[in-house]
């Protein structure tokens, strides 16, 4: 890209000073290569600002009470100039927020940006990811339509399977036995005050830690050339931001945010599905006892993510996608194996294996929980053993394989839940739903 390097004017200087609050004067040329990071972190910052902006506008009309919430959404959509567009933008950027945050996490993982100096920033990042999901989740209830009411009912019901305190925890989160007026108020408060504030604080910390680590991760062998962040970096950021905003605007012009009938606590729609990012968990729920599928497995996964930078790595590849040639191969193998075994597993569990029928009289937590979970665990360990024998990967490449397999698995579970589950949560083709 040819960049104009004329002497800056007075106002340009002021703009540059502002930029230097965030960026250093010079950055590594390698670090602004687009396909190193794809600008995902920057996109998230833009999305956050967009969410605050549209969210505050929606707050002027929205009323967080069961008798008025749905009507206030209708008012926003029908009576306010561009109200529907603002709501759509809030909806689509909310979805993109979760999606891009997830991609950003994957990017950070696959370019090895979690060792040493970046360790704590990885943990802040994982925490932000969790907060972003809850940010979206709390917003999901606010329209108070059938979609919102039942998705939140199903998702919060999962809490009752937490050992010992589960029931009380669920009632505390809901502010009562069922999803009710208190739940709406609690979710509204978290959505519009507590979570955004926490995110802002962690986000600032997140940016600062990137600076402390010497900027975005780059390969050790990459060229040491430096370029001025203004204009080289700033221009790229601006273009990315504008393209993103344009994309959201176009999306919002053509596709409306969903709004179903007013919530009716006595009537569950069929099927009643969780929000899309929990659909993988919902799919697991159909195969395992809730304690395993919705509590233990997600807990282990997030725990694993937090534990990751504290593992002992013999070799630390940084700034290179998939670490090594072998790493690339392993990611591919993981994806292919998951693509074959996970659908096969889903079909087997749906149509063939029925542990609770084969072992009647045994508590469900064992027959539909412990036994299948152990079986899957043993099979997975076997897979890892074969990979270790055949490919002789280093431990960082092994982690790469495990993570890739789990990610691919979650992706397939989610797709199954979103597109292949119809009435009564039966498996069916997407065009029959």
């Amino acid at each position, binding site marked *: 890209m040819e960049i104009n390097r004329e002497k800056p004017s007075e106002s340009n200087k002021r703009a540059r000073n502002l930029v230097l609050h965030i960026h250093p004067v010079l950055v590594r040329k390698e670090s602004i290569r687009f396909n190193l990071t794809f600008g995902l972190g920057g996109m998230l910052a833009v999305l956050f600002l967009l969410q605050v902006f549209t969210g505050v506008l929606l707050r002027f009309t929205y009323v967080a009470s069961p008798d008025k919430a749905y009507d206030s959404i209708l008012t926003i959509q029908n009576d306010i100039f561009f109200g529907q567009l603002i709501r759509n933008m809030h909806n689509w950027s909310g979805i993109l927020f979760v999606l891009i945050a997830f991609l950003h996490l994957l990017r950070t993982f696959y370019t090895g940006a979690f060792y040493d100096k970046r360790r704590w920033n990885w943990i802040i990042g994982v925490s932000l990811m969790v907060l972003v999901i809850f940010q979206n989740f709390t917003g999901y209830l606010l329209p108070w339509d059938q979609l919102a009411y*039942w998705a939140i*009912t*199903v998702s*919060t*019901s*999962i809490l009752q399977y937490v050992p010992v305190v589960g029931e009380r925890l669920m*009632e*505390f989160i809901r*502010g*009562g*036995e*069922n999803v009710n*007026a*208190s739940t709406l*108020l*609690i979710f509204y408060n978290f959505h519009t005050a507590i979570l955004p504030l926490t995110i802002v604080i962690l986000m600032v910390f997140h940016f600062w830690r990137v600076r402390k680590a010497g900027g975005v991760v780059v390969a050790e062998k990459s060229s040491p050339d430096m370029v001025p962040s203004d204009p080289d970096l700033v221009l790229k950021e601006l273009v990315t931001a504008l393209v993103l905003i344009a994309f959201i605007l176009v999306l919002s012009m053509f596709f409306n945010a969903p709004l179903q009938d007013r919530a009716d*606590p*006595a*009537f*569950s*729609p*069929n*099927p*009643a599905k969780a929000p899309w990012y929990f659909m993988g968990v919902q799919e697991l*729920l*159909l195969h395992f*006892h*809730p304690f395993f599928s919705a509590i233990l497995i997600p807990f282990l996964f997030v725990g694993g993510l937090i534990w990751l930078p504290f593992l002992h790595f013999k070799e630390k590849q940084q700034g290179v996608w998939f670490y090594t040639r072998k790493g690339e191969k392993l990611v591919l193998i993981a994806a292919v194996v998951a693509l074959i075994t996970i659908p096969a597993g889903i079909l087997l569990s749906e149509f063939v294996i029925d542990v*609770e029928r084969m072992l009647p009289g045994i508590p*469900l*937590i064992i027959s*539909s929980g412990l036994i299948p979970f152990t079986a899957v665990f043993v099979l997975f360990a076997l897979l890892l053993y074969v990979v270790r024998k055949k490919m002789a990967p280093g431990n960082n490449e092994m982690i790469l394989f495990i993570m890739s397999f789990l990610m691919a698995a979650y992706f397939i579970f989610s797709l199954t839940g979103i597109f292949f589950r119809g*009435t*009564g*949560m*039966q498996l069916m083709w997407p065009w029959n739903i």
Partner: protein
Amino acid sequence: MKTQTEHINRRSFLKRIWAWLGAIAVFEFAVMAFSMLSPGGRKRKRGASSFVTVGYANEIVPGSVIPYKSGQFYLVRYQDGGFIALSLICTHLGCSIGWNSSEDQFICPCHASSFDKFGNVLNPPATRALDTYKVFIEEGLVKVDTSRKIRRTGFQNSDLVYT
């Protein structure tokens, strides 16, 4: 022990007191914040008992399953004349179950759990029987106390109420 040999001067003593006071203040604030987190407070959750009057017992045909969606329950009368009020909330993940008279079972639309007429699990993923509400019969009128759900693992004959 280090603390015993350590010399505590005035300055560090005061600092320590400040730290403790700070910790207590944070704790107090946390307790206040925590209690503010449940709108309506605890009183509302327990609630006074609220009754739904269903109708005269002798007008309800044995073998019938009647939905009372406003009260969130199904009133079931068995062939032997016993009454039970089953919560319509599925014990798996809280969807509301529907009565399927042709298959003689309650079916949950969310994850396809099914329950028999007594609320027992016929088909998982639900892990325990439907909750019940207390049924009273006063002067021939059937009343259901909807203020408190009763958890149970399975159906027992004592769950039934007779005229």
